[in-house]
């Protein structure tokens, strides 16, 4: 049970982690993340990198959709901008990877602001559809611009750190995990600042927020920029991870995937972005495993995998929205609450 959490100052009340127990758990999590590549097999490290990249992108979308209330179906296309920026910089300029990732984030933020301009006049569903249009236009650019290599796309050399090529998942792990952790921590802290609070005010009622003196356009565009920055960095890590970027790498269905991830995880909570992206990335793998077990009984089970995956994907979105609209984060909170009061209330 939870005791001794009385606060004597606002600073203590606003702290991200307020009890020693939380710090202990956090240290354990960090330690297990560090130890993970030494004990896990290559497949699990590969999955961990993929999950981390998706967590970074989903957290970005959560800033825009979960906290600012602007629905975007362009997250995958924005990741594409980041991935292409990294690929072009790596092949043509050859700058080190951390500069590339930052430039990718900045570039995507600029693109995001341009496509966020319609949010001046439209909102809600109309905005969602404007972002579909944005992703279609970006997709067209990827496929028809000389710089992006047309439909064949670009392939690129691995990132290198102090002369070591980060060409395997277990090496890239040390790039992806810290960057993602930093980004998630940054997002969590964002909502303790004035800007972050302004985002939440706009989500709850934008006209009221404007009356309170929050410049709507500027703040909405800032949210677009931040969210796109996250998408760009995630896209850049994606490019280093797969090392081939093609226009087909970032279809509209991926944007729906990220939106689904934050819905399943819980919109407007940092934990939700993490849980949702992890869950949605692992579900197809679990399905693959189950189908693998079924193969002795159903010989062509593998051919059923793709449609089953599509059905489960849709059913998860619908099921969570109807039965658990607050997502996995709420389930987690319920479990926590149970243990907070544990011996006295069961």
């Amino acid at each position, binding site marked *: 049970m939870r005791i001794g959490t009385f606060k004597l100052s606002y600073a203590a009340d606003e702290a991200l982690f307020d009890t020693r127990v939380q710090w202990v758990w956090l240290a354990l999590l960090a330690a297990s993340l560090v130890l993970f590549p030494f004990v896990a097999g290559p497949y699990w490290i590969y999955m961990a990198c993929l999950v981390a990249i998706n967590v970074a992108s989903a957290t970005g979308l959560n800033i825009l959709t979960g906290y600012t209330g602007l*629905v975007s179906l362009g997250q995958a296309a924005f990741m594409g901008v980041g991935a292409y920026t990294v690929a072009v910089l790596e092949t043509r300029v050859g700058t080190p990877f951390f500069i590339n990732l930052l430039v990718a984030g900045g570039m995507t933020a600029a693109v995001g602001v341009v496509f966020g301009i*319609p949010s001046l*006049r*439209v909102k*809600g*569903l*109309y905005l*969602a*559809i*404007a972002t*579909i*249009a*944005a992703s*279609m*236009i970006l997709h*067209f650019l990827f*496929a*028809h611009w000389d710089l992006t290599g047309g439909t064949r796309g670009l392939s690129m050399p691995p990132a290198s750190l102090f002369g070591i090529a980060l060409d395997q998942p277990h090496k890239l792990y040390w790039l992806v995990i810290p960057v993602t952790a930093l980004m998630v921590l940054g997002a969590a802290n964002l909502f303790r600042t004035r800007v972050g609070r302004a985002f939440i005010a706009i989500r709850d*009622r934008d*006209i*009221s927020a404007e009356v309170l003196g929050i410049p709507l356009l500027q703040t909405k565009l800032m949210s677009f920029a931040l969210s796109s920055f996250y998408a760009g960095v995630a896209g850049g890590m994606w490019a280093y991870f797969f090392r081939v970027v093609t226009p087909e790498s970032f279809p509209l269905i991926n944007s*729906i995937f990220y*939106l*689904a991830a934050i*819905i399943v995880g819980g919109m407007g909570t940092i934990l939700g972005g993490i849980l949702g992206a992890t869950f949605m990335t692992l579900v197809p793998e679990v399905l693959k495993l189950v189908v693998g077990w079924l193969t002795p009984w159903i010989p062509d089970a593998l051919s*059923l995998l*793709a*449609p*089953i*995956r*599509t*059905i*489960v*994907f*849709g*059913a*998860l*979105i*619908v099921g969570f*929205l*109807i039965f658990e*609209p607050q997502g996995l984060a709420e389930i987690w909170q319920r479990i926590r609450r149970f243990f907070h009061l544990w011996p006295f209330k069961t």
Partner: protein
Amino acid sequence: MDWLYVTEVALAGLGAGALYALTGVAFVLIYKATRVVNLAIGEILMLGGYVFFGLVAGAGLSIWAAIPLTILAGAALGAVVERALIRPMLGESPISVFMVTIGLGSILAGVVELGWGADPLRLPEFIPNTPIFLGEAYLAPKVAYGALVAALLIAGAVIALRFSRGGVALRATARDQGAAYSMGIDVGRVFSLSWMAACATAAGAGVIVGAIGGISPTMGIFGLSVLVVVIVGGLDSVAGALVGGLLIGLVEALAGSFLGGEYKLLATFSLLILILMVRPYGIFGTHEIERL
């Protein structure tokens, strides 16, 4: 410039546009009554095509028996979807309901792929294929008859909306739910009816679209063009769906034949962004005034 060619392209575009308009009307019906943006409309249309295929090729029914059955199946699907997925979401934010329809689209696409495989299929020929000439311009007979049927169906829908009891109830519900309810209109039934009518229309449109271009599990992409149509026309306007449908059909056909097939989506979506910037609620849509 060869004007005959331009005319032919434009005619083909208008023919395709008639189908967009028909599906757009289905979309608007749902939006008007229930304020739900149904992104699954493309997948419902696809399911219509597949059900028709299954009834004709699988069950061996005659084509004229299969068409009404397909439309009935569409209506049944609409009723089930409204009751099971949309009714529980009443009062939730529009975004959540919108995501539910995206999920529904994904489920339907998966079911179709599970049942019929991922390969494209051809529907049996049932549209007469004697060439049609309007003046000198040639028009593919399938497109022409498809457009004709679509026009008749749209006319039927407009007349029903204007004069029938259900149509009046639907318009009353669209105007003011509370007032409609207090005048004795069963709003829940109107919701259900609008979904049934819309899904039946979409399933019928699916048969025509499938007869023209074949059916495949990726046919749901048709829904994206329909989405552009209704946004351009205005989400709650039947007239908007008509004008938008023809306009988008025309733009797609012209862009497709003079710039190249890959420019189709670029042209329509650029038009969409332009319209959104100038008239955010579409050409004929109602401008909703927000109050605190």
